[in-house]
């Protein structure tokens, strides 16, 4: 009998994740202990302090350098992880600012006063009159954030699955908490939950099959098995590998919102409270593509000939469906949802390119991972900013999400319309915005990965996509009458002046969009340092 060695955890490197997770736990205690009228302030303080501390630790660990696998080989803290953690924390904090908004909604938050009450009942009315609110949203969001941090950093499939659940479950709940349009919100939560559960099943089944193939949950172990072959790798073994790969792909692509696993996205984005939508649209995508890349580059990278055609097809379908369907949308949130699908497709082009050092990328070349990272910053900043604007444009029924009521906004509130236009131009990839550089870098890395035809398709689709973004700008500035009025809500919406936390979200979005469009060098450099996963 040998001695049992104590496992090394590497707490210092894991600290950012631990801080966020602990803050979420403390947040629950706050809910139980702190008096009601102090809870909101306490929760906000806790959340922002936790994110701040985590951010500082992440950056100091990152600058200390070194790619290490910690937590008994279950978490990889390497360049991509640090980059993703940093942007997750920044975008998370910015979204929490939107969670805290109370000014636009006449002194209450965007969340339901009593989520458990059946809509339209006496209990709900009482809760509204009491001006109650769920301050639990912040701990929930912190739990989700911690899951998002763990998800792309996980070094084995079990940890990854646990992270997937940590990030998903609070989000299901948050989706159902909208103050206005409760039924839509609850329906969205329900759908997201059921479909999310289905996708988790796919993921888990895939993980099991890959274990069956390789005898290991470790990503490096799976890689090892593919490279060196394992006992019994006959047709049967290959079958396990391929089936596992396909099922994993389904699970991960669902979270990423790629076609054909996207159908939940428009409904959930529309139904969820807008701050939550912003949080999901930016942060979930970041976490999901991080995990997707880690699994497929680290564990399945040696077998990329099998998954590249698949992902290429998915990328094209995602771009096309997202861009084309966005054109026909009449609702801002729904349009942004389809736009996020389209962007998922553009990101996937770089992912399919798999232009990494391991696949023969030249030294110093922009790799797939670093171009995706840059794209995520550009996309995340514009997304959060755009949704923040959506919370500000309101009419008597709450947020005026009908596009027809945005007609002529440029006349009534030129500044807000201008800022929204900046985000739309960035989405469209027009030069001098970060979206342009982002598109260039993902297309270029796909190109150097040898997928020239895919880049051509992507450029064509981005032309189509530019069209519907520009259309919204035209509607805001250059259309006088509601030309495409569709049913309710055609009365012009007004911009309500929000509190500073929402303005901060808009400000961060604009600053990032413009600065990284005109002067992207430093960020690209940073993304480039974080270009390789540790194996």
């Amino acid at each position, binding site marked *: 009998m040998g001695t049992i060695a104590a496992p090394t955890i590497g707490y210092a490197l894991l600290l950012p994740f631990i801080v966020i997770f602990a803050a979420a736990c403390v947040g629950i205690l706050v809910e139980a202990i702190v008096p009601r009228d102090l809870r909101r302030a306490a929760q906000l303080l806790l959340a922002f302090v936790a994110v701040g501390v985590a951010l500082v630790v992440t950056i100091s660990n990152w600058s200390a350098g070194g790619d290490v696998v910690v937590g008994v080989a279950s978490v990889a803290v390497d360049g991509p992880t640090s980059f993703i953690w940093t942007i997750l924390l920044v975008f998370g904090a910015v979204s929490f600012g939107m969670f805290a908004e109370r000014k636009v909604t006449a002194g209450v938050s965007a969340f339901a006063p009593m989520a458990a009450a059946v809509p339209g009942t006496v209990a709900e009315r009482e809760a509204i009159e009491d001006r109650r609110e769920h301050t639990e949203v912040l701990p929930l969001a912190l739990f989700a954030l911690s899951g998002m941090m763990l998800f792309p950093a996980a070094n084995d499939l079990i940890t990854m699955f646990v992270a997937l659940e940590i990030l998903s479950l609070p989000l299901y709940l948050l989706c159902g908490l909208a103050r206005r349009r409760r039924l839509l919100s609850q329906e969205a939560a329900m759908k997201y939950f059921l479909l999310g559960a289905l996708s988790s099943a796919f993921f888990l089944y895939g993980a099991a099959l890959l274990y069956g193939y390789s005898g290991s949950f470790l990503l490096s172990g799976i890689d090892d098995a593919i490279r060196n072959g394992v006992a019994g790798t006959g047709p049967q073994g290959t079958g396990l590998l391929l089936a596992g790969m396909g099922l994993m792909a389904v699970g991960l692509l669902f979270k990423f919102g790629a*076609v054909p696993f996207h*159908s939940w996205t*428009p*409904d959930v984005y529309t139904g969820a409270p807008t701050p939550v939508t912003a949080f999901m649209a930016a942060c979930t995508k970041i976490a999901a593509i991080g995990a997707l890349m880690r699994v497929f580059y680290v564990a399945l990278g040696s077998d990329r000939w099998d998954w590249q055609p698949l992902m290429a097809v998915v990328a094209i379908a995602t771009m096309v469906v997202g861009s084309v369907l966005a054109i026909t949308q009449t*609702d801002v949130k729904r349009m942004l949802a389809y736009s996020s699908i389209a962007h998922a497709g553009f990101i996937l082009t770089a992912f399919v390119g798999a232009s990494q050092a391991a696949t023969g990328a030249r030294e110093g070349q*922009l790799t797939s991972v670093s171009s995706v990272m840059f794209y995520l910053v550009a996309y995340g900043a514009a997304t959060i900013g755009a949704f923040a604007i959506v919370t500000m444009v309101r009419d008597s029924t709450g947020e005026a999400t009908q596009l027809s009521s945005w007609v002529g906004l440029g006349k009534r509130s030129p500044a807000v319309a201008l800022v929204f236009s900046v985000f739309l131009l960035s989405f469209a990839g027009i030069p001098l915005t970060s979206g342009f550089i982002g598109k260039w870098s993902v297309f270029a890395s796909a190109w150097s990965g040898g997928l020239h035809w895919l880049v051509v398709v992507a450029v064509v689709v981005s032309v189509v996509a530019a069209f519907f973004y520009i259309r919204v700008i035209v509607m805001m500035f*250059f259309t006088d009458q509601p030309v495409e009025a569709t049913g309710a809500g055609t009365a012009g919406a007004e911009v309500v002046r929000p509190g500073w936390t929402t303005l901060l979200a808009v400000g961060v979005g604009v600053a990032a969009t413009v600065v990284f469009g005109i002067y992207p060098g430093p960020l690209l450099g940073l993304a480039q340092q974080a270009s390789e996963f540790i194996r």
Partner: protein
Amino acid sequence: MESVTPVLGTGLFSLAWLLIAVPAASAAVLLLIGRAGDRWGHFLGTLAPVVSFVLGVVYFADLLGRDEAERAVHVPLYDWISSGTWNIGVGLQLDQLSIVFVLLITGVGSLIHVYSIGYMAHDPRRRRFFGFLNLFVAAMLLLVLADNYLVLFVGWEGVGLASYLLIGFWQERPSAATAAKKAFVVNRVGDLGMSIAIMLMLAAFSSSSFTDVNAGVGQLSTPLATTLGLLLLLGACGKSAQVPLQSWLLDAMEGPTPVSALIHAATMVTAGVYLIVRSHAIFTAGPAASIAVVVVGTVTLLFGAYIGCSKDDIKKVLAGSTMSQIGYMMLAAGIGPVGYAFAIFHLVTHGFFKANMFLGAGSVMHAMDDDVDMRHYGALARALPITFVTFAAGYLAIIGFPFFAGFYSKDHIIEAAFHASWVAGTCALIGAGVTAFYMTRLMLMTFAPGKRWREGVHPHESPLVMTVPLIVLGAASVVGGLLLNGWITEWLNPAVQGEAETEGLIHFTLIGGVTMLVVLAGIAVSFLFFGPQKVIPDVQPATRSPFVRAGRRDLYGDAFNEAVFMRPGIRMTNDLVRFDGAVVDGIANGTGTVISGFSSRLRRVQNGFVRSYALTMTAGAAVVGAIILLGRLG
């Protein structure tokens, strides 16, 4: 020939960015300031291109005084994208080619701005109009001053955006909105070529700067260089309205007339020619692409002339003639080193006389209550004397009347075309005759005796602020060719590695003589049909002739687009929407959701959508499996 290595710009040249910054800043002020700027906005808007013009003249004088080898000045501004193998700086390049463009854009642009003060005097949104004009000028300047393709592309997109805003300026007219959209979409098709070309350059040279690309393209394999050239040609076709991407130009006439003048004379459509000439090394390395340029130019010059013959709308006739003249420039650019300087020469003189004629047409419209139908004109020579005289100068210039501007520039192209290939030469010659025909027709229908005015129209000459630019441009149309002829080819040759020869002011060749005869024949035929004694019907006569019909319908350019791109596109969208249930599904449709009870909603949830979503997912998983297996087999 060796390629020229630009020298570093110091001193005065380090401020070259002001050329672009001044109109850009003015545009920003005008668009953001709101109503407060309504009273002085147009003056600021006009001042901006004038300042740029003065700066341009200063730089031009400086370059003139330099040794030939030092005339290409490179002004780096800052590192834009620098990551590993890529290093793309934002920088400007002032050389013989770009300074000519700067002077043309700001010079003619300034005159158009001055004219617009009068033309747009009664428009409530004049300030915004000037903001857009400034934006247009700034974007175009960035396009021609960029030192690499990616920065050029920024200007390229900016020009597209500004043209979209200006063509659709009178957005209350649905036709204007549609035209703007069309220009945007067609231009994006061209942009496609540009972006892929730049991607190729970055992959091949790890740089997109003109210097690196010119230096490296020699080592490229011929097919690759040809591909690159063809992609750039696609971009050029979009911006310069060359076949097959010509359809937007005629519709773009929906914009205010000064916009047409700016688009046709000083900005936008010249960008394609600039791109081809600037990329001369690529076309030298890929000769097949050069041939494609010649073909496109030749086809377009006939195409545009054909359309010019069959329109009654004065602006559309001019638009057709622009297509045709740009076709000449493309043809010259495609011929290669002997043609580059001629292409630019014609571009400059065309800038003079076309701006002149567009503004003249605007003056006529101003007099005729915005009527554009030439069948309602007639006998305007007496009513609008200044407009008539200046227009006539432009007319004589475009048909290539001896010693007028077009005479020098166009004859050179026709001659060069004959030396390159007799087919292209013959087409260019025919084009010259047809040009003479339709331009004479325009003059006769507009100015020759025989009033066909609508009731209540009292033509009057335009105010001074509009006629002065006309006079200046008219004078340039007369003497522009004379002044530039002896000088411009030698000036441009080193920058474009051209071998164009400088001809004397008076030189008669066989081809020149034949051209003159063909032009005279065109005029004669026009007089035969539309002479002063002829009765011109008030409405366009119905015709059975397929050729006339084709011309009236823009040679079926729209029908083609519709059949090939639009209808399949719409069908695809509809199918996708139906397949995805994107609009009708789920909750976006739920207008009455809050009213209807929760239970019914829940039932709906359980009965339909989640299940169908889950089904989609499962089907998707099956597809995933199928693709993986197919990949294995294949």
